Structure formats: C-alpha cells, structure tokens
C-alpha cells in the first residue's frame, strides 16, 4: 500500500493506492486503484467548517483539472467576477469566482450530504488546494485508461489497446517467474480473448491533466529523481493468468503515511526528471493463452512487428498511451490475441504547459522553433485543422517523430483529444509528418489545436 499526504496549511490531501506487481518490471513504484481523501481543515476556522471529500483517481484528476484551469484563468484576467468555468458535464467539479479573495468550489458528483454542493474557498485556501494537487500531479503518473474495446472498427488506436494487453501479459509473466505466493488472488478462469479485452476496465479520462513535466521535486520529496526509461519492443506475452487485487478501501493499519509538507518549495535539481509513480487504473483480467497481439512499436520503424498481425490500417507506427517511463525490456513472452481498436485517452500532461501560445500567432519563423520540424508540423496542421463548434477545449497531442520524419506514435492528452483525434488532421503512425531529423534522433512535438482555430506546436523532447 502506498500512502501520500500533502499538507499545505489549510487542507490535507491523502492518496492511497496499492502496489502493482508491475513495479518490479518498470523499475519504479507502480500503483493500482488510487483513492483520495481531501480535507479542508483550515486551522483558522472551527471544526464545523471542516469538510472532507473522497473519490477515486478519475475524481481526483477532474478536481485537479478544474482547479488548475481556474487558477490559470484567475491569473490571466483582471476582472475576477467574470470567471466561472462551468464544465460541459454538469457532474464535474468546477470553480466560480465570488471576488478576488472568495471562490466557490462546486463539487458536482463529489458532493455528499456532509459537504453540500459547494465549498467556499478563500484565496489562501485556493492556493493551498492548488499546491496540494500540483504536488500530487508531480508525483503520480497514470497508466493509460482505455475505453471499451470495439472489435468491429479497427482504427489507429489498436496498438493502444494492445498496450494494455501487453501490460497484462507483463504482469502475468512477472507472476509466473515470481513465487506464486506473491500473487494476492487466485487467478480466475481464463476468458476468451474478446471477453478479456472488453473486461479490461473502461474508464473515460477527463480533459488533459495538468501534470507538468519538469516540475521540481515536491518539498520533502519522497524519492530521488529517476531517469525515465525508454520503451522497448514487447513481442510476445505469456498465456498465464494474473489478477491484481482490488485495494481495500482504507489503508492497512500500521502502514506508514508519508507526509509531504508543502511549506518551502524545494529548489529543483538541474536537469532532473521528477520521480514518478505509475498508476494502474484498475485490476486487469488474465490474458488468454496461446494468442497473439500486435507489437507495441517503440523500435525504429524499419523493425517489423513480431508475433502477430498488426491492427489493420497501421504501419509500424504505434499509438501508445503509456508514458515511456513505464516500459522496460521484459524477457520474451508468449503471444496474446489480436486486439482491435479503442481510443486511449491519456490524462497526464500539463494543460498549463500545453496551452501556451497566442491565439493570433502568425505563420512564419518563430523564436521557439528550436528545430525546423516544429514549424513544419505547425504549417501542415494549420492547413488541415478547422474551427470546431462542438469542441470546447483545446486538443493536445504528443507526437513522437522518427528520425525519418514519420510518426512513431501519437499520445492524446485527455479524453477530448482522444475522442476527436480523427479531426485533428494528424497523419497516422507510420506516415510522413515532417522532414527527416538531424542524426538518428527522434523528437516529441507537442501539438495544441484550439477549437476556435489556431495551431501551436513546440518541441517537448529530443
């Protein structure tokens, strides 16, 4: 059991999650079934004002998104009363301004009888809430959630679905190689491939989660920064069975809670990545035996997939929704059944980071086009992307580009980005996107598409 506590002066955010067996393979803490408890416990207020809300990872990320976007709006606008970011879905939490120093947190489906529908937050309470959520976001990296797998309609998301199956397979192999006594639950009867794939939990993710990269280690940071691991091909998967358990609702007695006081922020170490804890969204069912799965292609495009037919319509590119840090090089594994497609929304990257550029940015050279391919990507997409009346938030994608300028994979950031990817104008994995990169390097280009029109691109990583 992993427990984290973020304790700014006026609130306490406690995270509980279960260790996943994947931790052994990805080389960093990997967690399952996160739950949280957020207490507003301002010592300046009486006990009667103490309010606690609870939820799961999705709820927490909805809250994180709402607070981050609201704070950014607050900082952007001089006239506070105009602020009120009412979400598309009425059950989502959101904030609205009362005055410079008074804000309403509307809880949506997080409300309960004890909390009421709204919580009034002062400026310092809002700041503390944002700080706690930012600290959480800096630590926790989520594994991809997949919507329900649709076998009837293969699309470029087939690889993403296969990734989750690969994850299942890696888990199964880990358990096969480890002592059986370490498996918490007995495996359930092996389902058919179809049942298995559909049973992989669907959980629509919210809009881009502002989990910034490069965020400094949280104050009193728990673990030293670890380098992100690069992905490697996973050709085969085991036929054996594994079933991570559902976590108990509360932390086990005796487990130490790790406090992270959010007083003085730590100075970020130079050129270091924050340590990350990967989150498995839910327990996954066991894979079927003796079947095949498309390879998650993170190898160079020239390497053909091994062990199974790739999803139709895709070349060697891959749509992956796991951050590179979660994939290492496992031992050779047996095959799994081919999986068709599903969107793989990813809620990981910072919306703040993504929503960066001016609305009316002109074409042509820009000072931040650190490699020419960034401008090329923007030019291409400006010709393809049209204003969208039914899309409310910017769409964001991390596009990993091979050294030859083709797309290796596309990672949508947030549910909307995944949902509307086919409108984005982005070429499919394997197709040419930009001119070849210098040397043999790859690049990750962040693409931001504004619903009212306008395209921004910048280099995330090379």
């Amino acid at each position, binding site marked *: 059991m992993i427990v984290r506590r973020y304790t700014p002066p006026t609130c306490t955010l406690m995270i509980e999650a279960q260790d996943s067996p994947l931790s052994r393979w990805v080389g960093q803490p990997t967690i399952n079934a996160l739950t949280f408890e957020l207490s507003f416990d301002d010592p300046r207020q009486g006990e009667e004002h103490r309010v606690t809300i609870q939820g799961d990872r999705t709820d927490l990320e909805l809250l994180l998104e709402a607070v981050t976007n609201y*704070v*950014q709006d*607050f*900082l*952007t*606008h*001089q006239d*506070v009363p105009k602020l009120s970011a009412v979400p598309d879905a009425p059950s989502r939490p959101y904030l609205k301004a009362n*005055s*410079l*120093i*008074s804000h309403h947190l509307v809880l949506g489906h997080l409300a309960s009888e004890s909390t009421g529908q709204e919580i009034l937050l*002062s*400026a*310092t309470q809002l*700041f503390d809430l*944002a*700080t706690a959520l*930012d*600290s959480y976001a*800096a630590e926790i990296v989520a594994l991809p959630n997949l919507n329900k797998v649709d076998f009837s309609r293969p699309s470029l998301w087939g690889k993403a679905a296969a990734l989750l199956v690969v994850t299942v397979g890696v888990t199964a192999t880990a358990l096969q190689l480890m002592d059986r006594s370490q498996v918490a639950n007995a495996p359930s009867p092996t389902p058919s491939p179809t049942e298995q794939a559909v049973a992989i939990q669907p959980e629509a993710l919210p809009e881009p989660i502002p989990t*910034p*990269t*490069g*965020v*400094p280690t*949280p*104050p009193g940071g728990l673990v030293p920064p670890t380098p992100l691991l690069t992905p490697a091909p996973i050709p085969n998967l085991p036929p054996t069975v594994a079933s991570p358990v559902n976590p108990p609702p509360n932390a086990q007695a005796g487990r130490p809670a790790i406090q992270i006081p959010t007083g*003085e*922020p*730590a100075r*970020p*170490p*130079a*050129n*270091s990545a924050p340590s990350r804890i990967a989150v498995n969204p839910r327990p996954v069912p066991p894979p079927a035996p003796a079947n095949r799965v498309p390879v998650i292609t993170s190898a160079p495009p020239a390497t053909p997939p091994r062990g199974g037919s790739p999803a139709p319509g895709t070349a060697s590119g891959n749509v992956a929704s796991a951050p590179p840090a979660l994939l290492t090089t496992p031992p050779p594994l047996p095959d799994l059944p081919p999986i068709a497609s599903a969107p793989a929304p990813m809620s990981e990257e*910072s919306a*703040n*980071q993504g*929503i*960066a*550029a*001016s*609305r*009316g*940015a*002109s074409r042509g*050279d*820009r*000072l*931040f*086009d*650190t*490699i*020419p391919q960034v401008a090329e990507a923007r030019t291409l997409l400006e010709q393809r992307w049209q204003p969208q009346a039914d899309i409310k938030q910017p769409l964001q994608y991390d596009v990993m580009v091979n050294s030859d300028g083709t797309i290796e994979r596309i990672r949508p950031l947030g549910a909307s980005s995944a949902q509307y990817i086919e409108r984005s104008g982005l070429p499919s994995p394997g197709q040419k996107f930009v001119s070849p990169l210098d040397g043999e390097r790859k690049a990750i280009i962040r693409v931001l598409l504004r619903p009212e029109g306008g395209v*921004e*691109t*910048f*280099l*995330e990583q090379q």
Partner: protein
Amino acid sequence: MVAPVKTSTHNPQWQELSQHPPIDDPAQLDNIKAQLDLVLLSLEALAGIGSEAILQAAAQLDLESIVADRVSLWRLRQSNPLRKSQGGRKKLDVEEARALVLICCHLAKEYQELIRRAVSLLEQLAEQNKEPHQAALLGDYLDNFANTYQERMDEEAHPPMDEMTHLALKLLIDLLFYSSPNGHRKLWLALMDRSR
C-alpha cells in the same frame, strides 16, 4: 529559422520556458512588458525589493548574461510602454521576458511568507468588512504601490485610485500563486493568454 540564443544558462526552468512558442507580435510583447513591470512593482511595494535583490536573483538563476547590472535592468523595465518615456525605448526581447518571469517567481518564492501574510490579512479584513488600509502591512503596500506607479508611469496611464487599489490587490494575490514551485509556468502562460 532559429533565433540566436543570447544566454547559455543551464537553468532548467529557463529550458522549460524556452520550449513554449515564441512571441512575434509587437503588441503582445508590449503587454508582456507592462505586466512584468507591474509584477516587479508589486514585489517592490510589498517587500522593498530593489534592483540589488533583482540582480542577485538573476545571478542565482544563472541569468546574468541577460540581466547583468543595474543599467541592463533599468533598460528592461523602461521598455514598459506605460512608463514615462525618456526617449529611445528599448525593445524587450523574448529571452529578457523569460528572464524577468523567472526572476519575479524566484523573488515571490523568497518572500512567500510575507505575501501569504498580506493575503491572509486581506481575507480577515474582508471578513470583518474593513478596508485593507486598516492593516499596516496592506496600507503600506497600497501606498507604496500607488506612489511608485504614479511616479514611474505616464500620466495618461494613471487609473483612478479605486482601480489602482484593485490592481495592487490583484497583483498581490497573483504573487501568491507565482510563489508556488511551478509559478514560473503560471506566470508565463498568464502573460501569453493575457496579451492575446
């Protein structure tokens, strides 16, 4: 075409901001200059931060190649189009804007306790239906802000006093958010969005 890079800083926050799209609209750049000057003004008015502290921050952030001395700093701040013109207004370029963002947030972090105390006082007084001037810390802040603003800015840019107070208090609360670990990102994005 990639613009020439003036600084060879290894500051990771600098590297992060460098990856954001550039600013090529002069009007947008003007808005950014004005806003950055105001953020620094609010820090001066609250904490008495002078050019020495700003230059020290630049050194600590490995940004001396951009803000090397008082003259450079003065020129950067004079680029604010709201300032009383003394002829030959310097153009603030993107790297300088980035540097000022990092400096502002660095100073906000250093003075976070003071900023928080001021905002908490504001909340208490509002709860008691009292004017902010009734607390010495806030009263001094508002007076310093107004006096310095009027001294430096072109008279055409002087707002009425109640707007000046609102501006000063809004900047004070903004400083609290800029004092957070990723405050530099918040400030940069606010500058981008505000200037559109």
